[in-house]
């Protein structure tokens, strides 16, 4: 993909993107997973995850980004994430109330603590990430007529 000079931006941009895009994705995942112990959370992390794919699209062109996450995959993942969040909320009925935090809370400030909150963050992160990416895809779907 880096060898195709016709699509995307210059070699410099492509090289820098190749180096940074993974780091951006990792940073997004970090923000999602640490949402319950540090500032951030599902929404902020999801936006960063989406930005890493948008970054890919800006540097390499639309086709490369779509080959990683297609429109149908984005749409399905978005619905699955929403249903995941709803089922986490529904699990609370096992303890007697909608949205009840039924999992053990653990010690504060540990990664594995706060019960269902990290799970909710993951669901929100996926939903926001693919949702924003899908919005961006929809915006670039228009092509110049040939």
């Amino acid at each position, binding site marked *: 993909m880096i060898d195709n000079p016709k699509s995307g931006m210059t070699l410099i941009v492509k090289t820098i993107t190749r180096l940074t895009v993974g780091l951006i994705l990792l940073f997004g995942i970090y923000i999602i997973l640490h949402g319950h112990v540090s500032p951030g959370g599902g929404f902020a992390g999801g936006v960063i995850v989406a930005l890493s794919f948008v970054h890919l699209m800006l540097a390499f062109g639309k086709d490369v980004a779509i080959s990683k996450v297609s429109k149908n995959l984005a*749409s399905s993942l978005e619905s699955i994430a929403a249903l995941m969040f*709803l089922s986490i*909320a529904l699990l609370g009925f096992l303890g*007697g*109330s*909608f*949205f009840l935090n039924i999992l053990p809370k653990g010690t504060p400030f540990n990664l594995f603590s706060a019960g269902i909150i990290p799970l909710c963050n993951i669901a929100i992160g996926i939903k926001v990430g693919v949702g924003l990416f899908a919005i961006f895809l929809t915006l670039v779907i228009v092509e110049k007529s040939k």
Partner: protein
Amino acid sequence: MKAIDIIPLFVIIPLAAAFLISLVGRFIKRSSEVIIFISSLALLGFSIYARFLLNSAPGKILVYKIGGWAPPFGICMVMDGLSSFMLVTVNLIAFFVAVYSLSYMNQYTDKPKFFTLFSLMVCGMNGVIITGDLFNLYVFLEIASIASYALVAFGTEAEELEASFKYAIMGSIASAFIFIGIAFLYSFTSTLNMADMARILAYKQNAWVIPFTGVLFLMGFGLKSSLVPFHAWLPDAHPAAPASISAMLSGILIKTLGVYSLVRIFFNIIGSTQGYLTVLMFLGAVSMIVGVMLALSQWDLKRLLAYSSISQVGYVVLGIGLGTPLGILGGLFHLFNHSVFKSLLFLNSGSVDYAAGTRDLKETGGLGKLMPVTAKTNLIASMAIAGIPPFSGFFSKLIIIIACIQKGHFGYGLCAVIGSILTLVTFMKVQKFVFLGDVKDKLKNIKEAPFAMVFSTVCLAIICVLGGLMLLPSLRFFLDGAVAVVLKGTSYAGIVLEAASRP
């Protein structure tokens, strides 16, 4: 599960249905139709069951604490007479519109997307009604609004996109006003729970914040309910949407997002003063007359119905603005009746459009012979909206006019009578140009609408005919429960907090 656990189901069921449809609708043919039918039927059943559950509840109120967090710290859901009344109205119309859409949406591509957005809209409206938290109300209001912007543009022709854009701009301005109002109230009271807010506002009176936010909310919710100075988006948005969505928008969306929220905030949180009531009555009376005058001169059937909606919402707001028990009863009863007959009229206009391919009054004519059922349901709805005696609209309008005279507002009473007469003229025009007269040559071969569409319109017509029976003593509890909540005013705070403190 305990009986009270059905309260969050009003949000869970449509939300789950929406995302299930978008997930499996693309792969399994007709699955979207099955899911939407089951979910809307379940919602209707649960809302009626919840109304009877409320009768046996202590204090006629049920408070559900989400996640077990007691208010004012957590979000609670409050089901009282008014919420329950609105829930039954919304889910009744949503069910019939969903059944109608099963056939009607065949003209459009991508039914699953339509039903996804439809479910999200229902979820937003149910959430607005059931929530007991002011910011939560705003979130659900945005869910319903954004789903409706997308649904107005569903045809993706130039006209639809323009209307949707206009609606989105006006709707966003309204949301911004509401949001700023909520921000001011939050900074003033340090709480977002509606009951707690009312409790704190009650002993912090005489602050400039309260009338200031009152004006912000009046503009915001006035735009959502399209009272007359704020009505410009409605006559574009309603005709552009698919007929089933016009029925939803006109029948319940403007009432839930506009009138219900206005009543809940003005009567139960801020506390109604004579100043607010005078403004509401005036806006109602102006909407009543201006709306119907504009409707009279329209030749596009759906545009005519849209203007008529403005006029009918005026009746609702006038009745509630009177502030007397009889006036509020009339206003809420008219809200229910208008939901039924205006949805029916929009669905009929959809049937005409579906069969004849046009909704221009100058091009149609004589359809009464070719579409006998639609013609008869339309006649019933027209008579109900104009206030002809045995039909439901007559009783609600009569109550509003009597309440006006009781309170000494003869001018407003006269406005209501004039509005009603002009409504009759408007719908005589519809009946004459669409269903009576000779059949035009190019319309000779059209047939009656398919079964699902006819089924919905006939059921709604039956409710129109029998609607007046709701005033019978044995069925009065449905309306009286809602009126009692509005009349209780700011003592809502104490009632909710007391109910929430029960285990």
